[in-house]
């Protein structure tokens, strides 16, 4: 097995381990648009593949993946915004399988809706916090101050509690 094959195998294992992170971000940005979600997933994989040789050995795999794919999603979102501005706005046609089948999915969609309303930085903070990361880890990942992260989380939680009646 060559070095290249080795790298490919390692990367595929990483993509397999981190696919939940990828799918969550896809859902956050692409909503229920399956085609868009598919495109975004491909872009994320490509960006991860490009960045894979540069991964620091000491880095937290999940946080590293999250940072890269989140930025890919933002870039994709901005590109879409530009395309909408330059071309005719086509009315959004929901995917045929958008109906929420169970209560859990409904509740989850409500969380996603609230997350979509947040600015990018706060979205990242909350997604990492929802994944169980501590303030310090979140601050380290996003290059922010620990106290700032704590304050933000506290405020967002209050907002969410008011809006979500789960």
């Amino acid at each position, binding site marked *: 097995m060559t070095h290249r094959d080795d790298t*490919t195998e390692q*990367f*595929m294992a990483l*993509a*397999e381990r981190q*696919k*939940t992170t990828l*799918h*969550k971000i896809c859902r956050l940005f692409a909503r229920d648009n399956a085609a868009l979600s598919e495109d975004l997933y*491909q872009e994320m*994989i*490509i960006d991860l*593949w490009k960045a894979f040789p540069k991964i620091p050995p000491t880095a937290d795999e999940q946080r590293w993946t999250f940072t890269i794919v989140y930025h890919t999603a933002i870039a994709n979102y901005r590109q879409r915004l530009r395309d909408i501005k330059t071309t005719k706005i086509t009315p959004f046609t929901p995917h045929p399988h958008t109906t929420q089948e169970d209560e*859990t999915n409904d*509740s*989850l969609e409500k*969380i996603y809706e609230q997350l979509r309303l947040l600015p990018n930085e706060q979205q990242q903070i909350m997604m990492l916090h*929802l*994944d*169980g990361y501590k303030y310090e880890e979140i601050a380290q990942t996003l290059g922010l101050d620990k106290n700032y992260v*704590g*304050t933000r*989380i*506290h405020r967002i*939680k209050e907002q*969410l*509690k008011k809006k*979500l009646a*789960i």
Partner: protein
Amino acid sequence: MKSNSTPNDDAWWSSIQELWKSQDETILEQSQTDSYDKVRSIITAHEKRCRSRIQKMWASGIAACILIALGISIMRMSTIPPTDLQQSSQPAIAQTQDVEPAAEASTHANEENATKQPVKQTTAEKSTPSPTASVPARPQPATIAYNPTQVVCNNSCDSAAVINQIRSFLTDTEA
């Protein structure tokens, strides 16, 4: 911050977190079968695209080099060597000098042709030893007549007039 949160808040938040984590299982279940192949196919397609882009870049680079080389060679071929330039420059200058005043002086020259001819003839005849001179003396007036600088200095800039002068001079000398 966290210290301000009540146990009720904590319970609410942990329920949200549980809900959030519950989707992981769903995602893993849904994408269990095809995800490995999917990632592989995405990488392969990306690598192919990269390779073809590199090939295109190389091809366009080589094409550009060939075009530049062709351009340079054409430029070199089209430029006249310096030796040719030296040879061709004198008549060209004389021609241009002839043409510009010719427009003004063409009527003048035609009118004054008859009056000028004798003047020229006399100067030419002065340079020759005698009208009854031997044959080797002939080339001397001929070279004087063809000299373009002399033509310019005499203000007879019309080439037709000059040719007429030369013809008449030659016929005179032969006579």
